[in-house]
């Protein structure tokens, strides 16, 4: 008889049996020897950090938080969380002005959208890129996502009344990308949901999910924004009984998992009601709800790329199956591998080589796939793929919208 039989340690790293499969699946360790790899940076060094904090290695900043190590782990060790929490707890590196600019997607978006044509043109100029590279250490080879002239939220205001006409409603967490860079995706979502007979509402208040703040070390701010988002989500889910859907896999993953794991924000009461639009629609259609008619005059062949956080969520299935339901859309499923950009990571000069090195395999596979475009649920994967391959990249919801028969 032993006294410990039914107890599980809070120190999750103790479940590691050193099989090292996490390091095999780590996209960074494969291309950047400066990164110790998830096994060492996670469970191994966590044990050392518990001995003395001086074992914290700043090389942990090379972790892109893709969580592929966690997916690979047969022992259920939260390797990615261990590494991110160690960065939060021990890192002494202060974020730079560049990190501040990259992390504050809301602020930069609000400043840029009113002047979008000017900002976009300027950011594309060689001398500007040289200055960004030299002064801010944002790599000159990186192309910037374009800012939209006018936000999604301002467009939505004009639609709000029309949306109220639907008897069934969902709340939409649009995220910074839809709001500031690509309102078209939000418009596509509204169109698809409306075609399904569902109205789209925005949350009472929405801030950036905070993923870039977390990865750049602005934890207090991330926590504040997360609290605000969870309050808004709670209001929609609990008070109005409206599920929350999103189009960004990373925002969804951050709200569902990173909030409780990294920021200590309780969301258990609402977590299951926050999901990706593709999953929501897949389930709706599977249960016989909603009828859609698609156009027959257009035929496309697309390649689906599984973003890392989609892999972690285990939800790429829904996006892929949904695409397959569209007549005249042929879907090629690419190997699930990291594209290398990892949000703001790939923008940083010091990470550019790693970022492109990680994505190399994926880029080659895309070029060889003979497709019209790539489809993915993550906006930063889209930037990376569009910058690094000859293909255009779309969200599954946009493909859906394009293939819908115009009413």
């Amino acid at each position, binding site marked *: *008889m*032993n006294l410990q039989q039914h*107890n599980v340690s*809070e120190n999750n790293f103790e479940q590691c049996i050193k099989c090292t499969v996490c390091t095999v699946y780590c996209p960074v360790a494969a291309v950047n020897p400066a990164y110790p790899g998830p*096994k060492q940076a996670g469970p191994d060094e966590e*044990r050392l950090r518990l*001995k003395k904090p001086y*074992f914290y290695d700043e090389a942990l900043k090379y972790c892109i938080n893709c969580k592929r190590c966690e997916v690979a782990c047969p022992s259920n060790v939260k390797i990615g969380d261990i590494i991110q929490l160690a960065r939060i707890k021990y890192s002494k590196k202060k974020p730079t002005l560049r990190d501040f600019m990259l992390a504050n997607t809301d602020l930069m978006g609000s400043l840029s959208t009113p002047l979008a044509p000017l900002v976009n043109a300027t950011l594309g100029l060689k001398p500007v890129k040289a200055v960004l590279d030299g002064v801010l250490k944002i790599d000159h080879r990186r192309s910037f996502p374009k800012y939209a002239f006018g936000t999604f939220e301002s467009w939505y205001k004009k639609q709000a009344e029309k949306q109220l006409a639907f008897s069934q409603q969902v709340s939409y967490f649009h995220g910074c990308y839809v709001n500031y860079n690509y309102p078209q995706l939000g418009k596509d979502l509204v169109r698809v949901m409306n075609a399904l007979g569902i109205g789209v509402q925005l949350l009472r208040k929405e801030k950036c999910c905070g993923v870039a703040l977390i990865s750049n070390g602005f934890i207090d701010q991330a926590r504040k924004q997360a609290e605000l988002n969870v309050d808004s989500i709670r209001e929609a889910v609990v008070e109005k009984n409206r599920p929350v859907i999103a189009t960004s896999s990373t925002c969804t993953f951050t709200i569902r998992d990173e909030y409780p794991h990294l920021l200590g924000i309780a969301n258990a009461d609402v977590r299951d009601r926050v999901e990706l639009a593709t999953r929501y629609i897949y389930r709706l259609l599977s249960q016989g709800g909603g009828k859609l008619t698609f156009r027959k005059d257009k035929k496309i062949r697309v390649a689906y790329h599984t973003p890392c956080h989609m892999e972690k969520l285990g939800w790429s299935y829904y996006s892929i199956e949904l695409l397959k339901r569209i007549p005249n859309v042929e879907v090629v499923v690419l190997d699930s591998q990291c594209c290398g950009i990892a949000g703001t990571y790939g923008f940083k000069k010091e990470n550019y080589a790693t970022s492109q090195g990680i994505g190399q395999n994926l880029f080659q596979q895309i070029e060889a796939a003979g497709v019209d475009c790539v489809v993915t649920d993550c906006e930063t994967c889209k930037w990376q793929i569009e910058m690094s391959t000859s293909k255009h990249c779309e969200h599954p919801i946009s493909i859906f919208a394009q293939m819908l028969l115009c009413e």
Partner: protein
Amino acid sequence: MIESYDVIVIGGGATGAGVVRDCVRRGIRVLLIERFDISTGATGRNHGLLHSGARYAVTDAESAEECIKENMILRRIASHCVEETDGLFLSLPEDDLSFQSKFVEACRHAGIRADVIDPKEALLLEPSANPDIIGAVRVPDGAVDPFRLTASNIIDAKAHGAEVLTYHEVTGFIREQNRIVGVKVLEHKTKEVKSYYASIVVNAGGIWGHDIARMVGVTINMLPAKGALLIFGHRVNQMVLNRCRKPADADILVPGDTISLIGTTSSKVPFEEVDRMLVTSAEVDLLLREGEKLAPVLAQTRILRAYAGVRPLVASDDDPSGRSVSRGIVLLDHAVRDGLEGFITITGGKLMTYRLMAEWTTDLICRKLNVSAACTTAVEKLPGSREAVEEIGKKMISVPLAQRNSTIYRHGDLAEKLAENTVSEYSLVCECEEVSVGEVKYALNELDVHNLVDLRRRTRVGMGTCQGELCACRAAGLMSSMHKYCTKRAKEDLASFLNERWKGMAPIAWGDTLRESEYMSWVYRGVCGLEWSQKQEE
């Protein structure tokens, strides 16, 4: 050729190593003979507690005073083996709080600093402590690594000309009338028996000293008392935790390097069993049950292994627990006691007082040999403790961080030898404890390593959570490639090492430890084709 010395010391524990160092520093020609490896007996099988003496203050004032004096000396001379953590004596609701004032007074009387602190403050200092505590006293306890301490004494002794023979077993004595003049020694590797002569033979064999003395017809009434301990997978506490009550079972939790240790039990064992100490499930349960009272988190913490040592207590009465026996130093001049010249036994005492035991022994030797040199071991720093670790860190800046910090923690200023390592030598042999190829090479070249278990004692290879799963085969491969042994012997050693690791895991084989050992077994047997029976020794 006759091999002759002034002094032969039998036993490579901390005491034997200390005697050899003290002797050679006073100009005495000395040989150390050890049956297995250094620190294989009680030296390597205890808490690694740098006692402040507080534990003994109430019951044994003499031991307490010795402890605090040696404690302060070791901090100075063996800084790389010592971690100055301080300790807390906790009173739980079930404990008598009135013991606390008696305890504090006894500590102060013995010269041990003892500060009564508020339980809330104690919990801030040591968050793992039981939140129900009603009292706490802070004392200058610490952690000491007995392997490093012994190894460092040996390094210094050898540097001054001492000779050390490990895996050499004393099988008999050479006697001329009433005088011991030498020993007959069996070399384990070659099975050769050789004779070594000396004016004085010192018996520093710990509990085995009983049998050594018996070889010359001298009886020492020793009382083998088994003490079992559990090693937890990581460092749970940063300060030593004790119970503020009369010494009892499982009331000390020590942070030692990467892990924490709870102990001990105390039970009398027959002499026939001292070479086969197995931890029973009753002992494991007791250690856990009591340990949880000090730090409740132990109930959920992975246990790495269990082990037991034998205290070489010298019985003064018939106490069956072996606990009220004095922990005092016993130095026997058999010329006076038994009329046998040239033979001295040093026993009793404890790891904490090894240096003082060595000093007393060497003083006696000097009187017998008419040597006037004074003892310097209380002031001369041990190799590894002579330079500030910060300075060593600067010299090793190119070594990867975790590896650098681990190596310096283990070897102190001697880690500097690894500063010139090449990139391939940065490769890790042991990933849990950050032992590099370079560190293993250093140990193989300079630290009397004959097999994987010896290597473990010098470097912590195989002491981490994987218990040899990843490192053992790499280390065996390195030993083989450096011609320490042939491939066949490497395989035998590998099997033997893994079996030795399993021995410590068996008593606590459940949960993740069991899962990991199954995985290890699959890797070695299934993938590498190693057979456990490749080991037929012991």
